[in-house]
């Protein structure tokens, strides 16, 4: 029996909340998820200049730069749709610069220097860890970003490897490619036609790992993301901490479109975002079916917009009144064929109308909300009389949705066109978009999904031939991948729970280095070492460099019989040597003799009775010996 996950927009039923669906429902919907995981590389310098990497300026700046972006042609001679959309926004872009972190390169006032060789090698190592096939010659490309996030208007980026994979929970997850690229600016404000960026992290080396769309449930997407992050960290070559790693999630359902969700703040947020995007696509596809049924086509949606400023001039709706009194123009856009659809839920607390509102906000830069109202919404806005007049001017009956937007004359013109574009997109179903993740687990329109047309070869830098001899050397000392770490621990007999904790723990490197020093049959076994390293009650030095000597000395003493594991577990510094056998026996008997005479010997718990003995001699006398002696005494 196939599961029915269809949706009727004309019913407008509430959408299932995240957590109520099983994998079967997602499968019925044809959910596919892919990931783009970004991770800053640990380097001293930025990728294409000699500025220090890793400086962070929370506030303040020394100087400001103003720029505008214009679309340019791709290598194949096309304009990228995203670039044209961004150009419509007419954004003024401000960059805040600090002298310490930025030179003329980031300002786009100087050509690039050669790619940082350390960053390149580190990206190659991570590529090899993902089993990617390395390209022979690196070609640096310019990936256009007209949002201003990079002052050049493009990001320098190059593919290092393609066609890789990682094992994950019994499956193989395909890795499409890994690229090395320069990081972009941090946006600090975006209001109206003004966008402000901070430039501290601009130009830092970054790797982007792109998976195949091999994930089929929201949870799987999160766990693969976690695995990729862990793998990158296992390399020891990437930065950690706030902002050092970011991910984009690509979601589609059967019949839908690949939607890129950006700005995902944490891996924990992924499942809910994926679920809600799947539902949005389901609603949009259902809306499309209704439109098709009504014979609505891209061509039948024509611009019948009207200037209705005069009609709403004296409105009692104070919000509109305020704008009109400040000179705003008001336009009405009738959408025949969309009857009953505008209030269709697309995501939790979100209706189809928001798709229009988002476009108006992002492209026309009318960003005071609400920025759009609709004649068929239930919210109290204009009076029934005003709506009637608007419907009449637009030549539609009541029930046909009429959208109303207001603002600066030029912006309203753009807004009207965006409403029509979004309406036409509805006929196609799910428009190709990059969407912004929102804190409540929903997402909003950010821009049109950029395509291959935004790529352009970087004419400032020649291709870089990957040195095979060097990659062979790098491969020989490649760090162990998490699954290899697990295999190594299993082979050494480390318990599964301990191994799972240690595999992602900072103490791993120490463990891996010390493991070969443990003698077979010695008192300290691998599981013992693992639990010592992970023991939170008695923290021991874990930093590989600083702690190295301490652990080496300790293991040497254990091997020489000059130290008992119990003494290490107790952890009283300096770690005491074991007592000679005769002295130990004398101390034992003294303690036993000092025990209160009236203490009844509990036949079932002889050790409990002798706890004071253990407390005093543990770590000084081998545990087995103590156990034997206590047995004798209890008997």
């Amino acid at each position: 029996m196939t599961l029915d996950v269809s949706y009727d927009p004309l019913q407008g039923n509430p959408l299932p909340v995240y957590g109520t669906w099983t994998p079967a429902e997602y499968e019925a919907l044809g959910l596919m998820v892919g990931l783009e995981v970004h991770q800053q590389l640990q380097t001293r310098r930025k990728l294409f200049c000699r500025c220090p990497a890793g400086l962070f300026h929370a506030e303040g700046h020394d100087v400001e730069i103003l720029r505008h972006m214009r679309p340019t042609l791709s290598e194949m001679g096309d304009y990228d749709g995203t670039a044209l959309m961004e150009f419509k926004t007419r954004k003024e872009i401000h960059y805040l610069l600090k002298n310490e972190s930025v030179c003329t390169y980031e300002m786009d006032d100087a050509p690039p220097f050669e790619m940082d060789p350390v960053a390149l090698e580190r990206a190659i190592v991570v590529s090899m860890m993902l089993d990617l096939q390395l390209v022979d010659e690196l070609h640096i490309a310019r990936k256009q970003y007209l949002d201003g996030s990079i002052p050049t208007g493009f990001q320098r980026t190059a593919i290092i490897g393609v066609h890789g994979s990682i094992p994950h929970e019994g499956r193989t997850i395909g890795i499409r490619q890994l690229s090395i690229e320069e990081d972009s600016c941090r946006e600090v404000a975006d209001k109206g036609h003004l966008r402000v960026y901070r430039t501290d992290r601009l130009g830092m080396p970054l790797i982007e790992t792109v998976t195949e769309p091999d994930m089929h449930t929201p949870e799987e997407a999160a766990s693969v993301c976690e695995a990729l992050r862990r793998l990158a960290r296992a390399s020891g070559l990437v930065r950690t901490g706030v902002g050092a790693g970011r991910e984009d999630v690509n979601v589609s359902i059967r019949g839908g479109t690949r939607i890129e969700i950006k700005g995902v703040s944490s891996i924990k947020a992924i499942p809910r975002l994926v679920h809600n995007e799947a539902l949005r696509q389901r609603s949009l596809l259902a809306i499309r079916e209704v439109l098709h049924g009504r014979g609505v086509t891209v061509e039948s949606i024509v611009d019948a917009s009207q200037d209705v400023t005069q009609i709403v001039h004296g409105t009692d709706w104070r919000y509109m009144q305020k704008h009109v009194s400040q000179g705003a123009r008001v336009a009405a856009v009738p959408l025949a064929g969309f009857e009953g659809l505008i209030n269709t839920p697309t995501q939790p607390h979100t209706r189809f109308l928001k798709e229009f509102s988002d476009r108006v906000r992002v492209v026309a830069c009318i960003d005071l909300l609400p920025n759009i109202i609709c004649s068929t919404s239930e919210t109290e806005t204009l009076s029934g009389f005003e709506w009637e007049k608007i419907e009449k001017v637009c030549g539609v009956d009541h029930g046909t949705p009429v959208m109303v937007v207001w603002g600066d004359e030029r912006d309203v013109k753009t807004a009207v066109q965006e409403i029509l574009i979004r309406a036409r997109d509805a006929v196609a179903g799910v428009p190709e978009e990059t969407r912004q993740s929102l804190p409540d687990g929903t997402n909003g329109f950010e821009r049109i999904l950029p395509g291959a047309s935004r790529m352009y070869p970087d004419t400032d830098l020649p291709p870089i031939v990957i040195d095979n001899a060097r990659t062979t050397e790098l491969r020989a000392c490649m760090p162990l991948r998490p699954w290899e770490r697990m295999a190594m621990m299993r082979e050494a007999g480390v318990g599964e729970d301990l191994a799972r904790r240690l595999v992602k723990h900072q103490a791993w490197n120490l463990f891996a280095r010390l493991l070969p020093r443990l003698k077979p049959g010695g008192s300290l076994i691998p599981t013992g070492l693992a639990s010592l390293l992970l023991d939170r009650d008695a923290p021991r030095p874990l930093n590989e460099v600083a702690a190295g000597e301490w652990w080496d000395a300790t293991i040497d003493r254990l091997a020489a019989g000059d130290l008992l594991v119990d003494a290490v577990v107790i952890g009283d510094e300096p770690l005491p040597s074991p007592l000679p056998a005769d002295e130990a026996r004398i101390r034992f008997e003294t303690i036993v003799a000092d025990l209160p005479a009236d203490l009844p010997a509990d036949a079932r718990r002889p050790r409990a009775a002798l706890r004071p003995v253990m407390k005093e001699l543990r770590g000084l006398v081998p545990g087995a010996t103590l156990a034997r002696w206590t047995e004798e005494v209890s008997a």
Partner: protein
Amino acid sequence: MSGENGYDGYRGPALAKLQEYEAMVWSDVTVATTKGEFAGLILPRNEMADPEHIVLKMITGYNVGLHVGGIEAITIHGRKVANYKIPEKEFPFTEGLPRVKLLGTGGTIASRLDYRTGAVIPAFSPGELYGSVPELADICNLETEKLYGVFSENMGHEQWIGLAEAIGKEIAKGVDGIVVGHGTDTMHHTAAALSFMVQDSPVPIVMVGSQRSSDRPSSDAAINLINATRTAATSDMAEVMVCMFGPTSDQYGLLHQGTRVRKMHSSYRSTFRTLSDIPLGMVDVAGVTPFKDDYNPRRDDTDVKINAVFDDRVSLVYYYPGMKPDIVDSLVDNGYRGIVIAGTGLGHVNRPLYAALDRAHAAGVAMYMTVQTLWGFVQMFVYETGREIMELGVTPAANMLPEVAYVKLGWALGQTSDLDEVKRIMLTPISRDITEREPHNGYLVLQGGIPEVEAFMSGQWK
């Protein structure tokens, strides 16, 4: 031989491998390699790159290079040729707008990718310009003509003469302003040449270029072109000017006198500066704002003096300590008729050069002294050295910039071989090439790090 029969740029083993599979450039292919399969379009290869890699554009738009040694097979699926062309649109005519002529010489004001060298090459057509900068149609009725298509380092006296004559013809036809698109490296040389060769123009002559090529979203080309066109169309200053970014921000353009301007930074957008004077004015969306009132005003007539001559047997010698006399001797031996020296300080060279200068003077070579400090006047009376050098026949050229003096000397020698007449021409100011006064704010190079400068900068657009 490379680039033959549709294998653009490939040579050696890479060419042989492609020919083996008849996989020409722009073929849509799957390449089986020892590392796995790669799918994409075969791109042309830069002729200067090695002959061992094949470049593939993958579906994602990324390019990768594959070593021929690892290629096991190439399967061809089809072909897709890049059509790199800015959508051309006919420039609209608007009644009542000024008539501006744009003369193209090359440079990055309009450019596209050149696969042969991997660099950008200039492209230029009115339709392309309108297609990429439609704002121009709000300013003027634009006509364009491509005179040359060269990088600015290849602009020389032949092109200067051709350009001056073309400008003369356009002025005679009654245009309201002229814009000259030019590479930035030698824009100030050409600006100086036009300042001398085109005199008493009734309309503005505005040179413009870009520091970031127009194939970049952040390019300054469009704004520069808009500013220059606005100046040519509306400015009252009928001067030869260079119009380029004032600050690096997209704020305003500065209008520099053609004889006082110099490119002062290898890559900054705001590279052009007026030296020993203030710029003529500035231009932004609001229009042109002159900084001075003693410019040549726009006129209604079509009269202009074109004097397009040049003798290229002139050299510019940049003096350095320890320079040997043979440098000067070799110029004389090779028949040079004029030498401009960029001397140290107020205009000096070392004593060992004296004999060579004396020989040059005797041979009838015209010699002029300028300063390598760039700012300030030559003054050869202050020190004995200066007087001695003047005795040897070297004439101080006031505050003419070295490159300007070089251009002016070639132009003067193109008109006459009478050295007194040459001297009269050289020392007669034509277009502020020599100024009487150097204003205090003609030398303004702020130094970072100084607290008051840092405070000033934090409140200004950089």
